[in-house]
C-alpha cells in the first residue's frame, strides 16, 4: 500500500544544481491559473501560500487509503493513521531542531498556539502587577491574547517601540525589562514590514531577568532556517498554511519541562490518561494539549509541505527570495510617489508600500484586474499602521515560486494604477 508519507517523499522537480524556479512552479497546479484573462501573479504569500501537488496528494491519499481515528483503535487503519500523525510530529520536531518530538503540540495555527500559551502558562504564571512585553509591530494575534490575559490578571502590557525603518528599538526594549517582566512575546519576522527581529539577542536579554520568551514564527518558518535549540526560546509558534501546507494546522513548540508544568488547555478525549467523576488524570505533553480528534490530514499535509521545503533546501529558498526582494525593491523605488514601509537592514520578502494620493484599496483592485494578487489593508497590525501614520499599506509578499518577471509585472501594474489616477 502506498502511504501518504511515501507520496510526500516525491522530490520537487528542481534540478540538482541551481535554483530552477520555472520547474518548481510546475509543482503548484494553481500557478497555471488565469485571473481576469491574465496569468496569475501570486504575491500574497504572507497571507497564505499555494500548495504543491505533493501536499495535495498526501491529503487525498490519506483520505483515500488511510483514514481512521488515531490513538484509539487496534485496527490496521487506526494504527496507520496514528503512525502518520506521530511521524508528522517528528518531522516538525526535526524541522525546528527541537530536542524531542514531545515538545511539538499541534494546534490550528500560530494564533491558537499563542492563545494556548496565554490561557495555560499565562493564567498559571502571570499575576497582578506582572508585565508582558510585546512590540509595536505585532500582528493582532500576538497582542489581543495578552490583552485578555492582562485584563483578567490585572497585569500590564508593555510595548517595544519601532524606529522609522521598522526595526525594534533594542535599547528601549532592554529598558522595559525588569523583575516584573514575566514574558516577552515578539514576532520573529514582521508580517507587515518584513523586518527580521534580533531574536537571539531578545532571548538573551529576557533570560537576564528570568522572563520567558514566545516567538511568533508565522512569517519566519517559510523563509529561513529556524533552530529552537540555538534560539533557546521557550515557545515558538507557526502556521502550516504559510509554509505551503494546508490551513487549519499549526505548531506550538514549547520546552518540555515547561509544557509538563503547564495546566491543560481544552478538556476532552485524548488529553486524559484516566477519567472518573472523583478525579481525572491528564495525559502528558503534548497530548495534554490536544483534546478531541485532531486535524490528522492537516498534519500529514504539513509534513509533506516541510518535506517539500527540505527537498529544495530552506537556505536555497532564502537565497532566491532575497535576490527577488532586492530586485523588487529596486523596481518599486523607480515608481514616482511610492514609499516603502519597512526598510530594515534585515528583511524577509515583504514589500509593503504606499503610493502618494492613491489608497491601497484602489491599488489592490486595479492590480487584481492585471491578474496580480496582493494584500491591502492594515495587515492585522493596526497599532503599527498608527505608528507610521497611515491607515493601510499595499503589500506584495514573496514565496519560493515567485520570479523576476513577476516583480516586473508588479512594477508595470503599479504604473497602470498611476495612469488610472493621473
Amino acid at each position: 500500500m502506498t502511504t501518504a508519507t511515501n507520496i510526500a517523499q516525491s522530490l520537487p522537480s528542481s534540478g540538482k544544481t541551481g535554483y530552477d524556479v520555472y520547474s518548481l512552479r510546475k509543482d503548484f497546479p494553481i500557478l497555471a491559473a488565469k485571473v481576469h484573462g491574465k496569468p496569475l501573479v501570486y504575491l500574497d504569500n504572507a497571507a497564505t501560500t499555494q500548495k504543491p501537488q505533493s501536499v495535495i496528494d498526501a491529503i487525498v491519499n490519506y483520505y483515500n487509503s488511510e483514514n481512521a481515528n488515531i490513538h484509539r483503535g487496534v485496527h490496521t487503519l487506526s494504527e496507520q493513521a496514528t503512525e502518520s500523525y506521530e511521524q508528522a510530529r517528528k518531522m516538525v520536531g526535526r524541522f525546528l531542531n527541537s530536542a524531542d518530538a514531545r515538545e511539538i503540540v499541534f494546534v490550528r495555527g500560530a494564533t491558537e498556539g499563542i492563545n494556548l500559551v496565554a490561557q495555560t502558562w499565562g493564567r498559571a504564571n502571570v499575576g497582578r502587577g506582572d508585565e508582558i512585553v510585546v512590540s509595536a509591530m505585532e500582528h493582532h494575534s500576538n497582542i489581543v491574547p495578552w490583552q485578555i490575559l492582562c485584563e483578567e490578571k490585572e497585569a500590564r502590557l508593555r510595548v517595544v517601540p519601532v524606529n522609522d525603518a521598522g526595526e525594534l528599538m533594542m535599547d528601549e526594549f532592554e529598558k522595559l525589562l525588569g523583575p516584573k517582566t514575566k514574558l516577552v512575546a515578539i514576532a520573529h519576522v514582521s508580517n507587515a514590514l518584513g523586518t527580521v527581529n534580533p531574536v537571539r539577542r531578545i532571548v538573551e536579554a529576557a533570560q537576564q531577568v528570568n522572563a520567558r520568551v514566545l516567538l511568533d514564527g508565522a512569517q519566519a518558518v517559510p523563509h529561513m532556517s529556524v533552530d529552537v535549540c540555538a534560539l533557546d526560546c521557550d515557545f515558538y509558534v507557526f502556521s502550516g498554511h504559510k509554509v505551503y501546507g494546508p490551513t487549519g494546522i499549526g505548531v506550538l513548540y514549547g520546552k518540555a519541562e515547561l509544557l509538563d508544568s503547564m495546566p491543560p488547555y481544552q478538556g476532552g478525549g485524548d488529553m486524559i490518561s484516566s477519567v472518573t467523576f472523583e478525579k481525572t488524570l491528564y495525559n502528558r505533553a503534548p497530548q495534554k494539549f490536544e483534546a478531541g480528534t485532531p486535524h490528522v490530514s492537516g498534519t500529514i499535509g504539513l509534513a509533506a509541505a516541510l518535506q517539500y521545503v527540505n527537498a529544495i533546501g530552506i537556505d536555497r529558498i532564502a537565497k532566491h527570495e532575497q535576490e527577488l526582494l532586492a530586485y523588487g525593491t529596486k523596481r518599486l523605488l523607480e515608481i514616482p510617489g511610492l514609499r516603502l514601509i519597512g526598510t530594515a537592514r534585515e528583511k524577509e520578502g515583504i514589500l509593503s508600500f504606499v503610493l502618494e494620493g492613491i489608497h491601497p484599496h484602489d491599488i489592490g483592485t486595479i492590480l487584481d484586474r492585471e491578474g496580480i494578487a496582493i494584500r491591502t489593508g492594515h495587515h492585522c497590525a493596526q497599532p503599527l499602521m498608527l505608528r507610521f501614520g497611515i491607515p493601510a499599506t499595499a503589500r506584495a509578499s514573496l514565496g519560493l515560486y515567485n520570479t523576476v518577471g513577476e516583480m516586473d509585472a508588479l512594477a508595470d501594474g503599479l504604473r497602470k494604477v498611476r495612469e488610472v489616477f493621473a
Partner: protein
Amino acid sequence: MADLRDLYQDIILEHSKNPRNYRTIEAANRSAEGFNPLCGDHFTVYLQIGDGQIRDISFQGSGCAISKASASMMTQALKGKSMEQAEDLFQKFHHVVTGKDGAPSEELGKLAAFAGVSEYPVRVKCATLAWHALRAALEGERHAVSTE
C-alpha cells in the same frame, strides 16, 4: 483597462481628489461614524437637521477613492432634502451599487456613476460606508456603525 474605467469613472476620481463638503459642521445636531474594519476606512458624517430637512451635511475621514467620492457626492445630493428623501435615496443608491433592479433610477442623478461598483462585490462596502453612517445619524444613533 476599459472595465476599470467603469469603476473609476472621471467624476468619481475627481470627487476623490477634491471632496466636497469635506469639513465639520459647528452647529451639527446629528453625526455618526462609519468604519470598515477590513481596510481601516473611517468617515464621520455631520448633519444639521431642522424641520425634518437636511439644512447642512458634511463629512471627514479617510478611505479609498470609491468611499471618499461616494461620501462627497452623497453630501451634494442630500443637501436640502427631507429625511424621507434621504432614506429613499439611500435605498436607490444601495440597489445600484449591488446591481439590483436593472437601470439606475433617474433620481440618483450623478450618483448613477457608481453602477460600475456592482461588478466589484468587495468594493460595495466602500461605496456604501458613508451612507451607512448617514443612516445612523438620521436615526439618531450615537455609536459608530461598522460594515461588518
